[in-house]
């Protein structure tokens, strides 16, 4: 059985294996979307205005989030296609599966430890395990489906944040809809806007995107290790995943002020981001200095390469005939440097 499976695997080409990963990801997203539709489609029939409002309110958040999070990557943003794919995974596959997983585990807490304990702690003890793993699965799928998209911890952080953003947006919609029932459907639109105000105005800065950004950074360390990069290691990968779960536990724990939970998560992700960016830029500058010394790139080109603004300025100074070639040259150099720096 094992040898038959090994034989089957060895007959698949690299391109076919990538296609298989992508097809599996599409299926997982379709499954998640189907689960969500099954649970929430009736809201659209009974409360059409409030349901549409709940979705519409999240659209600006998603757009601003995608733009903002892609800008976190130094030098140039990650590919738009894979950025959107990460958000879609978070918004469908991860949330849909988490809905079923959480319901099961929360039910077990209520049956085993009582309804009082479950009311206080079941979310804090279920979501960190289920949701962080399901979101991280999305970042792993990006690594497998687009091998050049995530090369190190900083890429992992950005893609993790994008998966978390998608999860957060869909969860906001479901919380808004559930709030209609909790408030007795007296004012469905008000229930949705109240939920939106709390979840976007108060907790958004420290919610899912921060936790999965940290877990994603951990995965990036594993990818870097596999590439043979010096900074790649298993230990920070495990530490990042455990930190993300701990952040989630504290976020869902009862009797802790919202401002502390949100502030703590935001500070953690900001500090990790600054440390990773600093290390990334140091490695990138070192890689550029080596190329300047070897004569493969001029000092002038090297000085502009890592800055979006300076690259644009160089392009604007070039003649129309030179511009296309210069842009291609910048992309080629940048790809090489990013591979070493990631």
């Amino acid at each position, binding site marked *: 059985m094992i040898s038959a499976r090994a034989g089957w695997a060895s007959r698949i080409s690299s391109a076919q294996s990538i296609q298989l990963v992508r097809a599996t990801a599409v299926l997982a997203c379709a499954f998640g979307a189907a689960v969500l539709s099954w649970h929430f489609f009736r809201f659209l029939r009974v409360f059409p205005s409030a349901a549409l409002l709940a979705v519409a309110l999240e659209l600006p958040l998603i757009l601003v989030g995608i733009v903002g999070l892609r800008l976190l990557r130094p030098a140039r943003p990650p590919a738009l296609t894979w950025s959107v794919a990460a958000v879609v995974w978070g918004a469908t596959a991860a949330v849909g599966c988490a809905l079923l997983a959480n319901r099961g585990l929360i039910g077990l807490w209520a*049956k085993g430890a009582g*309804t009082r304990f479950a009311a206080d702690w079941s979310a804090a003890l279920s979501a960190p395990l289920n949701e962080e793993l399901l979101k991280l699965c999305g970042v792993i799928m990006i690594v497998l489906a687009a091998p050049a998209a995530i090369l190190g911890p900083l890429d992992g952080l950005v893609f993790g944040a994008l998966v978390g953003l998608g999860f957060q947006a869909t969860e906001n919609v479901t919380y808004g809809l559930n709030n209609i029932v909790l408030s*007795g459907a007296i004012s469905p639109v008000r229930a949705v806007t109240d939920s939106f105000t709390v979840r976007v105005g108060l907790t958004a800065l420290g919610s899912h995107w921060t936790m999965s950004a940290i877990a994603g950074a951990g995965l990036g360390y594993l990818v870097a290790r596999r590439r043979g990069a010096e900074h790649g290691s298993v230990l920070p990968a495990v530490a990042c995943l455990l930190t993300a779960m701990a952040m989630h536990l504290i976020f869902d724990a009862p009797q802790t002020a919202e401002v502390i939970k949100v502030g703590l998560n935001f500070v953690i992700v900001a500090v990790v981001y600054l440390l990773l960016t600093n290390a990334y830029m140091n490695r990138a500058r070192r890689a550029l200095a080596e190329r300047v010394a070897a004569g493969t790139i001029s000092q002038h080109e090297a000085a502009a390469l890592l800055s979006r603004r300076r690259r644009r300025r160089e392009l604007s100074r070039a003649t129309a005939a030179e511009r296309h070639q210069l842009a291609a040259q910048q992309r080629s150099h940048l790809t090489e440097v990013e591979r070493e720096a990631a």
Partner: protein
Amino acid sequence: MLADETGRGPAASSVTKVRLRWLAIVVAVMALLTAGWPLLNSAVANRQPLANGARVTVGSGPTNSGTVTVGSGWYVQPAQSNPELEYVLRNGAIELDIRRVALVNRAQQAQMWRGMGQVLSLTVPGSSLGRPIRTTTAHGSPAITGAVSGPRLIGMATIVPGPSREFGIAMVVLAPRGTSRELRAAARQVVRSIMFAEPSR
């Protein structure tokens, strides 16, 4: 978890194997969480018996909660219950859902009945809520009640505003058509037993 530039040769084969192994891990983790917990949950009995005369309180704090007293044969379904928001009780084929509804202001009391009808059409598709009738609970609190009818279920919905008028307790009894009168009377008795820490104004 490594890029293979050419897609050919032993290195590419190794990368493909690693990719397929990680894909299998992802699928296994997702299946384990998504199907494993619900399966395990369904294997554990969802019933916590209540003694005859036991009190069940829904809400947070004495001034924001309501308490019902149950007779014999009732049990809580813990997986669907949360002491601050909702209790689902069962007695044979009868289900009694007790939910605390937060009100923003006193004027919203008038809209509670319409809201309850909408929530019922969400949770019990095809059901309809009859005209509300004014009544009082066993402890003298004013309430409104009405019949619920659906394709396979019949029952009764009741709303009792809390003393502060900033919350209400919504209760829905549902039973398959043909359920015995005795059981339905037992459910009505639980509904009528609702009481609050503060006297109604």
